[in-house]
């Protein structure tokens, strides 16, 4: 006797069970961040959109949401960059290559790359925000001819805390991207620019408000200032993307932790248009 008609009922599975993935490579980026290259145990590509995330599980410890930092255009493996801040992330840092972790995903809504095709792209990333940004950066570089001009601004607190230093070097050399990096607190060895990330806007040529899509990923405090810079260049609110962070327990729109007003960040986000966020009163407060 079944009283609720639901086709899902006969599947003896659970959306909460992760699938195994092997750590192919692990590299320490800074004291706090570790870079992981992973492959699903069945070898299938993850198939993410840039900006999406996965729930990373350590059985017996817990689960947490982590953005993908690699592009689907490089499907053999997928990459994560994880900052050690608490229970799960600390245990993740202690793993070694060859270990197996649990993955659920890709989850959420990433960047709408189709909408981006043909446009000039401006990415502004601060701190750990470079990780989710990197999936989009890689995508754009891999599909370079489908985009217009490509500006990338990256700000870190100190030179030591800059992530993906190899990439930073490569991007700097790469003629396909107009890349600028700055640190808040330079040390004696730092030859590059210093100051908060908004100072990098000086380095940009004139932007075309109707042809540019801007992407902002970083801590809430950075967000406010960067959005002002961008809006002041008359780029419409519907052309600005950003990514939100919230506590997430399920990643699939049930547990309620990531709810901001009437939306669930894990489902409608984490990538949003600024126009949409503006109406969400708690989104960046």
């Amino acid at each position, binding site marked *: 006797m079944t009283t609720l008609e639901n086709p899902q009922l006969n599947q003896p599975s659970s959306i909460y069970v992760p699938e195994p993935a092997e750590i192919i490579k692990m590299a320490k980026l800074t004291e706090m961040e570790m870079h992981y290259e992973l492959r699903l145990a069945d070898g299938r590509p993850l198939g993410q959109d840039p900006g999406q995330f996965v729930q990373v599980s350590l059985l*017996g*410890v817990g689960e947490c949401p982590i953005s993908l930092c690699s592009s689907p255009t490089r499907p053999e493996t997928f990459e994560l960059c994880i900052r050690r801040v*608490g*229970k799960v992330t*600390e*245990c993740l840092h*202690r793993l070694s290559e060859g270990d197996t972790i649990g993955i659920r995903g890709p989850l959420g809504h990433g960047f709408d790359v189709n909408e981006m095709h043909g446009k000039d792209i401006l990415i502004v990333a601060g701190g750990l925000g470079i990780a989710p940004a990197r999936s989009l950066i890689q995508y754009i570089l891999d599909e370079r001819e489908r985009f217009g001009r490509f500006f990338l601004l990256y700000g870190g607190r100190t030179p030591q805390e800059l992530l993906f230093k190899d990439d930073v070097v490569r991007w700097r050399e790469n003629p396909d991207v107009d890349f600028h990096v700055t640190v808040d607190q330079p040390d004696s060895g730092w030859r590059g620019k210093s100051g908060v990330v908004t100072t990098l806007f000086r380095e940009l040529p004139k932007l075309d408000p109707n042809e540019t899509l801007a992407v902002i990923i970083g801590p809430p405090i950075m967000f406010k200032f960067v959005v002002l810079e961008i809006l002041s260049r008359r780029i419409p609110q519907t052309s600005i993307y950003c990514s939100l962070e919230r506590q997430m327990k399920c990643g699939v729109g049930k547990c309620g932790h990531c709810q901001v007003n009437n939306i669930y960040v894990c489902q409608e986000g984490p990538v949003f248009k600024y126009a949409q966020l503006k109406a969400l009163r708690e989104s960046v407060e």
Partner: protein
Amino acid sequence: MKPKIAVFSLTSCEGCSLAILELENQLLDILGAVEIVNFREAMTERDCDIDIGFVDGAVSTPTDVEEIKEMREHCKALVAIGACACQGGINSLKNHQNEDDYRSYVYGDGAKHFPTIKAQPISAFVEVEYELPGCPMVKEEFLALVKAVLSGQQWALPQTSVCVECKKQGNLCLYEKGIICLGPVTLAGCGAICPTFGSKCEGCRGLASDEALQAASINLREQYDIPLENILADLRFYGAYQEKSLP
């Protein structure tokens, strides 16, 4: 090498150490995973380099002060177990009485043989890695902590109030029966065992937050006509509130 675990007692009823022995179903597994040394209730041999030291009891005598400092030196991690070790516990009731008076009331002329100081949590004297509050401590929490430490994980107390667990138990709230329960202001983790067994929460696990205490001072006075002084007297039962003068 199995990690070495030890259990000590300061001023207490030793109920918290005993609670470990009441983990009958897990005790052999625990013994299999750790080496227990210097467990006064269980053995004669003594040892020094201890990975985790569990301490029950408040610091309430000059000897306690020396002992806790010595324990700190011998233990890589120190865990305060029970209300006495975490907040001073029931021993701290004397902190609100006149010292000469309580000493001579109990020991008369013999009082001089019983040096005592204000009952205080062990964190007032030494650094403490973890606290397992409750009178007695919650043995399931002890087990969870041991497992977390053995598997190299962080561990933290819940941050909610007892009402959460009471609701999960499906209890009738005691306020419905006109009983003033301390559940709303008390830190969860006990599974709301007192309300589940029909008795008001007595606050043995300490305050959930200062904000909750603020709310209590408005609510109990305005909605229930109870003076703040009475609420504080209740919260003193296990040292959860000690005029904020401690340590």
